[in-house]
């Protein structure tokens, strides 16, 4: 490797040029814009519901009491504002993909690495968190189906988890590990979730949550809301930080931007529709849950929603349905989130900011197998040994930071390249991005100091890796177009044949 001749600051600020934009993006007229508002809304709802609502209450309600309802709305507003900024960013940058790609093409390599650090939390750690939540519902389902038989306490909880009364200390969360391994095997085989399956999953999730709300309302007790904000206003922000975890994925709407019909109209409609559905369902579930069960009782519950149904109805039938729905839909959420993580690492490997093994495709399965295995190992370790609330906090802080970067990115891009064609522009610029930064910033500000330290340390590790390794191996070093080319002899002899673009 030759020593780079460019200065450090130039390295840190260099941006990935757009390669093959006409093919990847909607710049050529041939690309079919086929996605309408309904389907786009389904993307948003499908990516969002299920990441958190099934198990976030047990961590959020003890923080803020009944005022957690307000926290849901606060988190929803912040996520919605950020999603709108995402949509402009995605439409202005002619690359498709994650925040990492947007940041690399607009804000430079150094920021991109920081964003990548956040995304590893948003996808990798949230996969672990979701898997832990899945294991709770699986255990609940087993217990309901087999007359109280449960997996032993030692293998369904992390060693540092709080121990509820009558339970033994956990050693390892085995079901979560099994789930992660299953998803990894599916991804290695090249399995994917189709648009139809996504819609079915949305129906299952909304169905079981609606069922929960209806049954829980039968035991509604307004007295449970008497002491509405027992810990004051600041606690509402803290709870919003925990809850924010359940809003990640709303940005999925924006990533589909270049295939959306009439994006300037469709995009905000879909984002707002998805946001209203998601926030509405969450608030409904939260109100129903707190109405049915005193807020003091949420602490330390597992598979909380199913537990509430048990207490309300006095029978296990309904909670079995809910647990089954949760087990099916959380499985799909884990698959999709883990897939996202492998593809982000793939992009980084391709850009030379990670070792090239991350961008290697296995000839047999035609999937990035090494990459998937590494993700599976790291995520299983997190899922096996780290308690759920710690994971959730880390996901929230990473996601909020990434959202802020995007919102600032929108402003920077408007100032630096005002004439850039944008398929979608944020309404009420510059108020929207500024509000997005403020809303996300407020929630960030309320998070625990130890979350901040853990997050700061993590970002520093990633940046240190960049300074010591990444900047020397970046694909931009050759002064090229950002694609790693190997000078294998006779390469030009090999023809690449692709089907015509208008093929179905």
């Amino acid at each position, binding site marked *: 490797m030759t020593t780079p001749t460019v200065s450090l600051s130039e390295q840190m600020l260099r941006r990935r040029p757009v390669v*093959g934009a006409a*093919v*990847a993006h909607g710049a050529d007229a041939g690309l079919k814009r086929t996605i309408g508002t309904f389907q786009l809304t*389904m*993307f*948003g709802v*499908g*990516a969002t519901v299920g990441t958190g609502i099934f198990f976030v209450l047990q961590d959020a309600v003890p923080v803020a009491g009944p005022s957690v309802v307000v926290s849901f709305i606060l988190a929803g507003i912040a996520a919605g504002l950020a999603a709108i900024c995402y949509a402009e960013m995605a439409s202005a940058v002619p690359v*498709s*993909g*994650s925040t990492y*790609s947007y940041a690399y093409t607009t804000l430079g390599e150094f920021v991109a690495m920081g964003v990548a650090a956040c995304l590893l939390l948003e*996808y990798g750690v949230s996969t672990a968190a979701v898997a832990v939540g899945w294991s709770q519902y699986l255990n609940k389902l087993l217990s309901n189906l087999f007359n109280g038989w449960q997996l032993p306490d030692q293998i369904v909880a992390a060693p540092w988890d709080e121990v509820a009364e009558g339970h033994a200390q956990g050693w390892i969360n085995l079901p979560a590990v099994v789930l992660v391994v299953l998803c990894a095997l599916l991804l290695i085989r*090249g399995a*994917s*979730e*189709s*648009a139809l*399956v*996504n819609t079915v999953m949305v129906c299952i999730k909304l169905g079981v949550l609606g069922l929960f709300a209806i049954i829980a309302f039968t035991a509604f007790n307004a007295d449970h809301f008497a002491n509405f904000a027992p810990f004051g206003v600041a606690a509402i922000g803290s709870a919003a930080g925990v809850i924010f975890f359940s809003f990640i*994925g709303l*940005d*999925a709407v924006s*990533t*589909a931007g*270049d*295939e959306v019909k009439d994006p300037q109209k469709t995009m905000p409609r879909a984002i707002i529709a998805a946001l209203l559905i998601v926030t509405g369902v969450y608030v409904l579930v939260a109100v129903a849950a707190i109405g049915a069960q005193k807020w003091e009782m949420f602490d330390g519950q597992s598979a909380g929603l199913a537990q509430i149904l048990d207490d309300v109805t006095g029978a296990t039938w309904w909670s079995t349905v809910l647990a089954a729905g949760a087990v099916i839909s959380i499985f799909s959420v884990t698959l*999709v*989130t883990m*897939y*996202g993580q492998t*593809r*982000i690492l*793939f*992009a980084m490997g*391709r850009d030379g900011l990670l070792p090239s093994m991350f*961008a*290697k*495709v296995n*000839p*047999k399965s*035609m*999937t*990035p197998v090494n990459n998937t295995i590494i993700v599976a190992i790291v995520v299983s370790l997190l899922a096996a040994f780290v308690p759920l609330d710690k994971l959730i906090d880390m996901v929230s802080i990473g996601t909020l930071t990434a959202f802020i970067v995007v919102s600032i990115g929108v402003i920077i891009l408007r100032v630096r390249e005002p004439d850039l064609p944008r398929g979608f522009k944020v309404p009420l610029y510059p108020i929207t991005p500024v509000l997005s930064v403020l809303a996300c910033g407020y929630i960030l500000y309320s998070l625990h100091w130890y979350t901040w330290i853990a997050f700061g340390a993590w970002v520093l590790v990633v940046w240190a890796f960049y300074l010591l390794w990444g900047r020397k191996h970046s694909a931009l070093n050759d002064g090229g177009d950002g694609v790693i080319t*190997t000078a*294998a*002899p*006779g*390469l030009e*002899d*090999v*023809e*690449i*044949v*692709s*089907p015509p673009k208008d*093929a179905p």
Partner: protein
Amino acid sequence: MTVVVGFLAGKAGISALHLGVEAARTLKTSLSVVTVVPKPWTTVSLARIDAEYAQYADRIAADSAAQGLECVTKLDPTLEVSFHKYAHRSAPGGLLDAVEELKAEALVLGSASDGSLGQVVVGSTADRLLHSSPVPLAICPRGYRGSKSHGLTRLTAAYPGTEESRHVVERVAAQAARLEVPMRVITFAVRGRTMYPPEVGLHAEDSLLSAWASQAREALAKLKSDGIVGDDVELQVVTGNGWDQALDAAEWEDGELLAIGTSPQGAIARVFLGSKGTKIVRHSPVPVLVLPN
């Protein structure tokens, strides 16, 4: 040495005979048309209860031979052709016996009749042989009627890009040199399906595909630089959204034969078709030659 064609009158048509005649001519050897008939009851019985059944078996063999002879004579009157009847409990079993006894160089089968014309349809007989044949197995598309040039015009090897499958290319190259036909090596790159909801964009698989295509390109270039194939061999990476699209994009010539190797996990020196190979066979518009491992 001979080329064995599995043929049964009234089943799967005469396309296998067309390919068999071409194969025998290309390999400059004889053709053996084999009909597997049901095995009659061998227990001695005074009432000869099975006589009618045995007659029926003889009749279908005779019918097949007559129909086969007519067809082969029309195609190539000079070809040395023989007809054989094998009584066996199963069609694949009978064909395997024939391959062993007649010392076949290759086995030729037709497509099953329940698929679209022009596509290779693997029937139950072919399916079992694709996992057990000790000799190369050729299957023609449904309704195959030979090439206009009445012979092989090009040999294409499908190469998955792995180290362990380089020997397949080597063998196909040797065969192409022996038969003096041009050769082509293709690596198919098929795009993974889009994951919904699209958390990292709808085009994540596109970048994966382009990475795989450039990786495959290097592997192909290496075949040439390592001297496994000659300089005149055409090398191609063919991409597509699915196997059907990729196989269509590959531009086939009249009289072309697609050769694929089989998975190493099968028994030694047997054909054992893997999952990717099955997809290639099913979508091929030209006859496919499946080589034993």
